[in-house]
């Protein structure tokens, strides 16, 4: 009886699988209908996100060193196609990275670095925009998805650039322009100029994973556009919450508040 039952169940499972194979089109194993969505039907990226990738240590492939674990790199093709002068700048940055990385002053990290910097950020989403509140420093980024265009004046030099997004199916595509040339791309001194143009693609791989791709174009720094890719993981810890980390305040906060003598 037991044997018969098992055989029967196995047959059922096999039959079900055959039926599924027969009716399921050739798509990856996740079901697009399972991802969180806004009432409008757009994917809802609300949540606390952070990458497990060591991208922020060095975007390019590298062995372990005193201030960085090893990494296979996150760039398609492996390396950033710098123009000669920009490559020399990267070398100078690398040599003095322990003093010059803007992160050490807790400055706004810029785009795309703020996305793969190893600290959580929280996405709050409405139909008209996404608000990216970063734990590190004081950066708050708005990605507009309300049909607005980049400002006519594109020489304002923002640390985070100006982000305008639109949807291509379930992928959020964000065009980011108008940067200042101060932010770095990682702790290894990789950098960009004020002519940086970033095209981001955000999409759910499953409910708790976002695939993030950024193509960087910069005629003053790179010989051609190049693309990096990291995954972002949803923080599901029971105590998960953003705790402010302004940290540029650390240099002087011991002077406040007044204390009773």
């Amino acid at each position, binding site marked *: 009886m037991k044997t018969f039952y098992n055989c029967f169940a196995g047959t059922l499972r096999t039959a079900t699988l055959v039926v599924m194979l027969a009716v399921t089109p050739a798509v990856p194993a996740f079901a697009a209908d399972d991802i969180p969505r806004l009432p409008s039907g757009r994917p809802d990226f609300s949540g606390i996100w952070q990458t497990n990738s060591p991208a922020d240590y060095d975007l390019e492939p590298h062995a372990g060193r005193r201030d960085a674990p090893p990494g296979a790199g996150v760039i398609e093709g492996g390396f950033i196609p710098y123009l000669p002068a920009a490559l020399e700048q990267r070398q100078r940055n690398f040599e003095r990275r322990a*003093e010059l990385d803007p992160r*050490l002053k807790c400055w706004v990290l810029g785009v795309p670095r703020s996305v793969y910097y190893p600290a959580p950020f929280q996405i709050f989403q409405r139909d008209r925009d996404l608000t990216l509140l970063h734990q590190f420093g004081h950066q708050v980024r708005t990605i507009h998805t309300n049909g607005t265009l980049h400002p006519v004046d594109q020489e304002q030099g923002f640390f985070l650039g100006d982000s305008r997004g639109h949807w291509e199916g379930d992928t959020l595509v964000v065009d980011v322009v108008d940067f200042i040339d101060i932010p770095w791309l990682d702790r290894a001194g990789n950098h960009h100029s004020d002519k940086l143009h970033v095209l981001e693609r955000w999409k759910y791989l499953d409910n708790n994973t976002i695939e993030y791709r950024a193509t960087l174009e910069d005629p003053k720094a790179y010989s051609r556009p190049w693309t990096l890719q990291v995954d972002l993981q949803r923080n599901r810890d029971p105590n998960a919450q953003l705790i402010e980390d302004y940290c540029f305040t650390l*240099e002087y906060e011991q002077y406040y508040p*007044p204390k009773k003598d």
Partner: protein
Amino acid sequence: MRSKITVWLGLGLVALAAAAMAAEPTGTGQRFTREISFPLIAEGKWPGRQLRDGQPDVEGFYSNTIGNHSNWTNPGRAPSRVTDPADGQIPYQPWARAKQEEFVANFDNPTRPEYIEPLARCAPGGVPKSFVWHGFEIRQFPGYVVLLFDSGSRAIHLDGKPHLPDKVKLWNADSRGRWEGNTLVVEVRNSNGKAQLGRKGDFIGPNAVINERYIFAPDGGRFNYVATVTDPETFTRPWTSTIPVKRFTEKDEPDNWNYWVVPANLPGKPLLHEHVERICVENNGPFGGGAVGVPFDGPVIAR
């Protein structure tokens, strides 16, 4: 490029610069004028639109209407923010009053780092000072009210979860709230007490509890911010501040101070205002520049 950012941030007499800019109309909207008195708003039902999670929809741009961020209690060009006690003064313990007066005596010529206003170093504005600084934006999401200030942000949690443990102290504190009709009720704890209330050394200690009530008018056009501070280490009694706040819309004229927005680029569509990026410390030019230790341009963290 840098000079433009410098203009945004303002160096030194930022208030005067903004007032000068505001004096030249840049659009066709209504010019905002400061109030010397303001209406009370009764707590009660919210008759307006609601968001999908049931919150009253109060999203938008706001600013205080009294325009005095330097001094919390001076009734000269605005009513004292202190509405209880009735004399409009902060009921300090003697030791705390002495510290506040010491700051005032040294503010113009700070010989020690503690005589520099933290906001002048680009520190977050803190609770409740942020409400009398530049205009700010309220964005709402299921379970949250997010306040985006000129100097720092606050995410008010509406999910009923407890505050962070007491030992975690923060510039903008830890905020847990709920809606009662037209009133957002928020308990604020975990402040580090470092952000001050103005430029007169007024402060609230690091173990204070601040109960905030954001009471919205039925038409959504304004709210009164009523904050009661309980901090027996610093004060002789609980005390309450009230700050009148007005909503700003496309009918209002941007003024680079209370309503610091720009027209979005949306050809052929009605006027839509949006906020632009604010930086401060990155510009290496907080308006305490030149004072002791300001600006500071070295590494701050080792992580």
